[in-house]
């Protein structure tokens, strides 16, 4: 157990193991994404009310779900790096932020593309949309803070503190945005009349959610590998790697 913990702190080991995981996870993810996209976009029945436009759900919902989960991954990594001073947790946290921001952005864009045919408008100040927008700001704040520091060690710690503050605040923000919305606007817009979803539509959706999680993991590992190489650029093992030795 503890030796595993110590190994996690070793950049070359993590670099190698991330590479091994990627070697099988990446193809699986790509296949799952392709299957999910074709299944969802081509082979499911069109929705009774929304016709074909509902199909964007297969991109929108997975992106939104993983964008939310990504913040927790980032915050946990930040906490680990603050408490146990693990450099690799710091690498993980730093690598999470741009991926999470991208996914949040995808969720917002696909949502607004979906909103145009269904609600007749690109943007609504709805509770959920507003919360996602704030989540995007939180992610971008972490990226901006990291880039502002010249000393990358301090940057990691500062971002870890910021993500933890965000972790405490996210439920408060979400709850207050919820209240704000229910106070000010009648719930004139509903995503769909009834929340039940037919199994024939649900299974491809579940597959897409699973593959987006896998995609997040792949991007995270690739990002981490690049970050490790950058940080360890002056060490012997990276030089050997760059010169073409297989370690």
């Amino acid at each position: 157990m503890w030796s595993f913990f110590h190994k996690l702190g070793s950049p070359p080991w993590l670099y190698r193991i991330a590479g091994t995981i990627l070697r099988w996870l990446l193809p699986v993810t790509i296949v799952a994404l392709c299957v999910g996209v074709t299944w969802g976009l081509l082979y499911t029945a069109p929705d009774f009310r929304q016709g074909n436009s509902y199909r964007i759900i297969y991109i929108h919902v997975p992106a939104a779900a993983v964008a939310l989960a990504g913040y927790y991954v980032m915050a946990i990594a930040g906490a680990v790096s603050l408490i146990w001073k693990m450099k690799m947790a710091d690498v993980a946290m730093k690598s999470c932020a741009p991926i999470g921001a991208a996914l949040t952005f995808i969720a917002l864009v696909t949502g607004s593309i979906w909103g145009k045919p269904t609600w007749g408008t690109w943007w609504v100040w709805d509770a959920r949309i507003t919360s996602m927008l704030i989540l995007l700001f939180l992610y971008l704040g972490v990226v901006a803070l990291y880039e502002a520091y010249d000393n990358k060690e301090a940057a990691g710690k500062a971002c870890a503190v910021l993500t933890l503050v965000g972790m405490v605040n996210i439920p408060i923000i979400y709850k207050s945005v919820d209240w704000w919305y229910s106070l000010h606007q009648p719930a004139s817009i509903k995503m769909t009349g009834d929340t039940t979803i037919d199994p024939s539509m649900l299974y491809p959706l579940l597959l897409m959610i699973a593959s987006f999680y896998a995609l997040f993991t792949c991007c995270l590992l690739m990002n981490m590998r690049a970050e490790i190489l950058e940080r360890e650029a002056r060490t012997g093992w990276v030089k050997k790697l760059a010169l073409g030795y297989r370690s």
Partner: protein
Amino acid sequence: MSAVAQAPGPARFCLVLLRRQLTLAVRRPIEIGNPLLFFAMVVALFPLGLGPAPDQLAGFAPGILWIIALLSNLLTSDTVFRSDFEDGSLEQLLLAPQPLFLSVLAYIGAHWLLTGLLLALVSPVFALMLNLSAPAVGVLVASLLLGTAVLSLVGGIGAALTVGLKRGGMLISLLILPFYMPVLIFGSAAVRNAVLGIPATPYLAIIAAMLCLAIALAPLAIAAGLRISVDA
């Protein structure tokens, strides 16, 4: 008698710090006036931008006043630790035996007394200029008193994380504004309720709850941020 003076206890140390911050501010009265002047100027921007119709302004007044209070708090947050960071006294503070939690509270308390409290006290004047109905003015003052304290505490986190950076000014807004949003929601909702004649106390209670949470947790984050900034 020992020649070495006894170190002051935490509570006393906290009061000394508070008095020091206030004295420093009183010596430069213009800087106390700046946020108020900012408040007045931005209030003047809204009729110019939205049109002078009194009814329309009255409808927007709760939101306008709250957003301006939030912005002037944000702009002053950046300076809470900066001068002490630059002259090295912040480093001494971190080395002091007294708990940093309380020292940080003293800094934030001084910031609130100099911005939030004063803003809340002058806000009725601007509320009348924006045609806010009279019964809502009391609620506005109460919500600003509670809410700006939360803003000062949360803003302190941003200030602590960016104090070591040369270009902190814009960054602190990006970091902190998302965390200001809940306070804005409940603060303006309280005033709006008061305008409509609905009791505003539930919202004030929620802001008070946020304040309790912020007093308990924000100093921890600020202290951690200051240690990072001073080490970097």
